[in-house]
């Protein structure tokens, strides 16, 4: 029976709750409603209102109380309803969640996993399609991860919850309905490792979350043109698996980074900077970036023109190969 990414994550949450009674789930509408994407569906019914509860409408409050609950000894898994509504919690995430373990010289552990549905492509209204990953990745002390497949949705979520570090877990909302036939539970590679999703010899395409599928599609289309694309799913955006990135570029000599977020200071900037630092003599072309534009996220009717897609990736593949 096929399982969607949303169901896989739901299953991971359920299994984590069953295994460890310190796991708590809370946020806006995660209880009876099961979350606006139904990712927490059924959890309140199974685990009760003490362990799965709706909070008042206040994101700083959700993260700030998660910190207090973690200090007490719980393992909170708060939800931010949408990417664009994480910003009111920025202070608590950046100044406290990320820093407190370090500030306390390791005495205070904050095993908090913040779930955030992120990214565009579902025709939503403003503030519902943001890709804020660079804000979190630039913040030392946070781990940032995002699954590109339902299997990773399950396995990486389990790992995030078991980790003692705070994790920002970005769920690619437009892939919530992506299916797998794999049976859950499933254990994939450790979250810290980037994974080669498709091997290739001409160009490395680095991608994550919602763009993994898109990059694979591009690789498929490129094959028709006779270009062999290696698709690398980064999975952990902070820390980055630099070794795997460099190894791939050493094989192909060319690299493209794909993400929905705006190009300026997006993850692509860091990946490009590291590649040229570490694989300078292997590069036969500059690292190119297939990304959203340096504008606010567009209205729904225009998102297809804004988001990177197979064509935008192939354009860059062609440009990279022309060097």
């Amino acid at each position, binding site marked *: 029976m096929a399982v969607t990414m949303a169901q896989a994550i739901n299953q991971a949450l359920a299994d984590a709750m069953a295994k460890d009674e310190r796991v708590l789930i809370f946020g806006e509408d995660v209880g009876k*409603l099961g979350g*606006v994407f139904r990712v927490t569906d059924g959890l309140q019914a199974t685990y009760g209102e003490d362990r799965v509860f709706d909070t008042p*409408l206040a994101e*700083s409050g959700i993260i700030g109380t998660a910190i207090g609950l973690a200090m007490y000894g719980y393992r909170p898994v708060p939800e931010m309803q949408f990417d664009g509504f994480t910003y009111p919690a920025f202070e608590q995430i950046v100044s406290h969640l990320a820093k407190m373990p370090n500030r306390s010289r390791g005495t205070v552990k904050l095993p908090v996993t913040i779930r955030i549905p992120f990214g565009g492509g579902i025709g939503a209204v403003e503030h519902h399609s943001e890709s804020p990953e660079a804000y979190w990745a630039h913040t030392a002390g946070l781990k940032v991860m995002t699954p590109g497949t339902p299997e990773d949705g399950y396995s990486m979520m389990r790992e995030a919850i078991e980790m003692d570090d705070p994790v920002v877990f970005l769920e690619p909302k437009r892939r919530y309905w992506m299916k797998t036939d794999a049976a859950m539970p499933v254990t994939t590679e450790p979250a810290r490792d980037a994974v080669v999703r498709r091997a290739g010899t001409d160009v490395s395409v680095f991608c994550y979350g919602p763009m993994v599928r898109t990059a694979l599609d591009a690789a498929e289309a490129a094959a028709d043109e006779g270009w062999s694309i290696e698709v690398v799913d980064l999975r952990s955006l902070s820390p980055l698996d630099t070794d795997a990135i460099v190894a791939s570029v050493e094989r192909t000599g060319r690299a493209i980074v794909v993400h929905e977020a705006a190009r300026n200071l997006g993850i692509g900037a860091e990946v490009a900077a590291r590649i040229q630092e570490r694989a300078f003599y292997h590069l036969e072309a500059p690292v190119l970036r297939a990304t959203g534009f340096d*504008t606010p996220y567009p*209205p*729904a*009717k225009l998102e297809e023109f804004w988001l990177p897609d197979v*064509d935008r990736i192939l*354009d860059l593949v062609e440009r990279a190969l022309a060097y």
Partner: protein
Amino acid sequence: MTDAANGQVPASTDASDRPDPLDFLPPDEPVHLLDPDGTYHPDPDHPIDLDDAALRELYRLMMVTRKVDREAINLQRQGQLGVYASCMGQEAAQIGSAYALGPDDWIFPSYRELGAALVRQVDAAGFLHLYRGTWLSDHDPYKHNFGLMSIPIGTQALHATGFAMGARLDGNPIVAMTYYGDGGTSEGDPHEAMTFAGVTKAPVIFFVQNNQYAISVPLAKQTAAPTLAHKAIGYGMPGYRVDGNDVLASYAVTRRAIDRAREGVGPAFIEAMTYRMEAHTTSDDPSRYRTQEELEEAAKTDPIVRMRNFLTKRDLYDSALEDAIEEQTKQVASEVRAGIYDAPHGDPMELFDHVYLDATNHFEDQVAQLRSELSQGGEV
């Protein structure tokens, strides 16, 4: 400043400066002027200074709002809108309050204020373009004194407060009113807004539609406050409460707060008790969190029926009026449909035009990229 005699360290304001705190507390029951059967209970504190034409106009505005709202839901079902947040059931709260504003006053709305928008003559199809995703906003705020609809909850309360601070500084006797919901009262921004407004005596009205839910979360899980209006005293402003399904009471209570603010006395908070008759948005499934019975009970408090009963009792309602309004709502609905169906798709190249107002050429290569993608795809 300190009163060493009894060893107390009093606050830096003199006791004589302080207003009587009890004046800031809400009454035990929301202000209510109209019974469901239309019976009107005059209240000297809340006079209704409206002539017959204005009373009919309130009714007409509610009817048009309901019709456009219904049309929007249909358009969403037809795939013409991505999503829509209905204001059904909240027409009296919105229209009564917005009608109490003067022509130069401003509104800073959330995403659910179709009724208030129509009072300010914002084009209905234009209003819906946000939900269609044609563009992020369609109306000119300066033409209607109606700010951009704010989706991040409660954030617009600060914009309203800053605007009102500006008006006060400028000696301009206008008032800014901001709308948000019961859920919105939990966010930090409205708290900071009320704090700033209290200190600066900014002429701003915080109008909260307590429709009992924030998506699926009922009021009891949102706050333990006796009522939302009890929050106001904590900012040194009065907290009013009104039956939000009573358009006359909504008008009168808001009017009183506006007059007070315009005179320079300071801001006010209004809690309008109402009920969200529809799903949170067209994407929502309310059957998961509320019962059919609850909905049926709530339907008995319909604000439009109540106003119609009142007009009928006053002999202000007859079949001529009924026909005229029916005609008009049909007309507006068809304009809305046309405005949405015939809407241009939006020019992708415009994406770059308003990011910065002072021209900059820093994303020239991105502009070129999109232009080339469009010409390859032949999409434009």
